[in-house]
């Protein structure tokens, strides 16, 4: 599904050039659950942004579903992203002015789904995430775990091929964290490809492959049985 080859990303100021990704190469197949680990500043988040088509690399190749997307412009990336990628963030990133229902509905609005269909799909996914009873509440009225479930619901409502999770349990206690990891595992079992950035060895064990990075390069790659 995803093949990156010699991927490079730099950040330059007047005096220094920082290499965030240094000729990174790996593949992710459809249906895999991959965890990316490494110390702070190793380039995990930069990699995730590029994989999520939020950012473009400075060098190398990025093939997404058979398309070379490394040279895509902003509009092309946005179009590909909204139809194929769902995001789960560490700090949930729900919109405070929208209710739970409206937050989850948002990706469907952006992909032009009709109102009736939207309602049906949002209710389905909220039921699945067991958060339907709070659909009219605002994010600030929910606990951390509930907010992250809503975020997961939003990420999957458009049936994306890929879910990118950036420290999804970082702001949660262990109980809620496990709950979210179980959700992600269920989604993966159902066929969704998941790439997760994490510091937690515990969370990494939910994946079936761990890629470790240091200084923008892949250091090790372990398949979990």
């Amino acid at each position: 599904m995803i093949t990156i080859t010699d991927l490079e990303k730099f950040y330059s100021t007047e005096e220094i050039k920082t290499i965030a990704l240094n000729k990174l190469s790996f593949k992710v197949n459809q249906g895999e659950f991959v965890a990316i680990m490494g110390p702070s500043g190793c380039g995990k988040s930069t990699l995730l942004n590029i994989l999520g088509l939020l950012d473009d690399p400075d060098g190398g190749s990025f093939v997404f579903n058979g398309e070379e997307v490394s040279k895509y412009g902003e509009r092309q990336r946005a179009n590909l992203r909204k139809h194929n990628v769902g995001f789960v963030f560490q700090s949930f990133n729900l919109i405070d002015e929208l209710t739970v229902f409206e937050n989850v509905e948002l990706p469907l609005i952006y992909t032009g789904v009709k109102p009736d269909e939207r309602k049906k799909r949002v209710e389905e996914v909220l039921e699945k995430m067991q958060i339907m009873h709070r659909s009219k509440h605002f994010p600030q009225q929910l606990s951390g775990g509930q907010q992250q479930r809503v975020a997961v619901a939003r990420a999957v409502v458009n049936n994306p091929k890929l879910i990118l999770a950036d420290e999804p349990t970082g702001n949660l206690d262990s109980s809620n964290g496990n709950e979210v990891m179980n959700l992600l595992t269920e989604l993966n079992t159902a066929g969704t490809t998941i790439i997760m950035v994490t510091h937690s060895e515990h969370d990494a064990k939910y994946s079936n492959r761990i890629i470790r990075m240091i200084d923008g390069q892949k250091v090790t790659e372990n398949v979990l049985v």
Partner: protein
Amino acid sequence: MIGEHFKIAWRNLKKNKVYSFINIFGLALGMATTILIGLWIFDEFNFNRYFTNHDKIGQIYQNQGSNGDIGTGEFMPRPMEFVLRESYTDNFKHIAMASNRESQYLKYKEKNLSRTGNYLQEEGLKIFEPEIIKGVENGLIDKNSIMISESTAKAIFGNEDPIGKIVQIDSGDNMIVTSVYLDFPVNTSFKDVHWLIPWKHYVSQSWLRNSVSHWGWNSFQIYAQISDNLSFPKVNINIADSKLKANKANADYNPKIFLLPMKDWHLRSVFENGVQSGGRIENVWLFAIIGAFVLFLACINFMNLSTARSEKRAMEVGIRKAIGSDRKQLITQFLMESLLVVALAFMISILLVVVFLNPFNELASKEIQFPWANGVFWICSMLFIAFTATISGSYPALYLSSFKPVKVLKGTFKGGKLSALPRKILVVTQFTVSIALIIGTMIVMSQILYSKDRPLGYNEAGLIQIPALSKEFNGKSDLMRNQFIASGGAIEMGTSSNPTTRITSTRGGFTWEGKPEGFQDSFVWTEVSYDYVKALGMEIVEGRDFSREFATDSSAFLINETAQKYMGLTDPIGKLLKYPTPNGSEIEIKIIGVVNDVITDSPYSPIQQQFYVFDRNDNNDYYNLRLNPDKSITENLSLIEKTLKQNFPNLPFSYEFIDEEYAKKFAAEERVASLAMVFTILAVIISCLGIFGLASYMAEQRKKEIGIRKVLGATINNLWLLLSKDFIMLVLIAILIAAPIAYMVMNGWLQKFIYRTEISWLIFISAGLGAIVITLITVSFQSIKAARANPTKSLSTE
């Protein structure tokens, strides 16, 4: 989708109540100001549109040259009527002669009311088509008929039917009321025409009999409606030389006749050297510009406050983009939010307009009604909302939608130093406009005060003027003078043919020794009695005043200093002047004295050359009385009234205070200055609202920094200065930009006054200091509040 946008916009407004209030109220104030100005401008352009044929009606004017200067006037000699009717028939559908607007006392039983009106030819009714509500359509057929306005009918007759009743006018003639017409609306040139009497009655008066063939007697008005198939420019070409061709004796003055269209009467009736140069239209443009500026300031506020809070919305933009929104959708969202704010502001602005319309009408001397039922107004309002939403919302929409999700999603987005630059530019722009308006208004007021302070040349305080209301006054000036003085109500009296504060008569064609060949003279002509100079408190500069001791003074006259220079006389006393009379003969009069210059007409114009000729026939038109300074005004008036009534028991006591009449000359400029001051204050309030919002936002932004500085020992004063100085810098920059612009514009405006004030540097200092003080006051509230906050609260959240 649009419903979504409005829902989010509404929730955002509720979430940030203070900013929402500042935004919406500031915009509402700006929009209300623009709507009021818009209504005022609409009313100005709608002037005279009440008349069905307004686009075909005009008044005959003439340009005449005199020593290189071309004067323009609407007063015509009577023979012009016949020339236009007989030789230029095809150009006109209707022609009507009319008198100048006059005041008459209309007497019926015990009622005796003064009303203004016109003598008018019957054809004038076809031109102006007054709406007849009682009586006959053509009420001017009979020579002794009178048509009256509805309000006049009510005032005189109450519930009685006025038709067929007899009303006595000043001349003592009895007039039959033949029609009652609806009062002409306030925004017409005929709003104060409350009676119409046939022209044939007017010209039957003995003193006008010779005017029918007199080309030099320019005292009458000619109205016309041009033919349907012609335009004004075409007609003007045709009639330009009509007077010249009909009367070769006028050749020296090179008269050019033209029609001034009705649409120009109100707004474009000022002429300079024969060329139409403008008039009230300048005020219209001035207020249009002010209105646009005030709205612009309100939009700047919106833009500033929206972009200042952008960092709080950056995360939302990042999330939306991450989950699939493209830039166009975000721009639409933010524009919709602007639209909601603008729509709310518009509703509040309508409320403000309704509440303040009456006081505004009073200030502007208008009777504007809110156009609830006017579809055009509401369509324009919708466009106005859309336009304002686009103008004020476009920059925030473009700015906010440009955020890159990668940069904002971490939650640590901060606008760079350059992100504040557009906001600073907008604040500087706001204050430049406000300061320029302040300076402009102060200079206008300074010019008015300067003109008011200009010495009149006589003592206007304690001086009243009584119009001679009937022929009964003739021949009695000495008698009345003695009686008024004996009563104790007055200490001096003189009569005049002109009112003291207006020029109503000019004459030319005089000859004197040393008059240059071909010199086209024109003088203000006033016939006066003995003691006129004394009554007014004028000064004899050379020679002497009229005296009862000299019988020959019946053929004497005084000239003013300007006339002496105009005539080129170094030694004027004893010089003779010949002048033509209406009946074609010549009279010789002698100069016995030179009086000081007095302001008789506009306080902004130079004094005209004037003759004070002895009123040998005692045909006085105005009594000018110097009140007794040892008694109160009320007492004096009571004594004078008693004396008047003893002599003229049937005439009402009507008088004017000369100083009040003179003060009215400033009414138009004072109105403009008052309106400009109101709008300037509004502009400053809007700017302050914006600064208040920005100061509040900035204090919130720098909470952590303030906390740290306090911990390290900063005092409240240190912190107040830290937070205020940025804004003061911006205001100083605005002062430096505004001052030269305001100077250039106002210096240009002052050039139109011959008598004008200097622009004092104090005005600029005051405006600048005022702006700084206002800014400090506005900003200090937030600065001091932030400076006094507990630092532990701001630091513990980090």
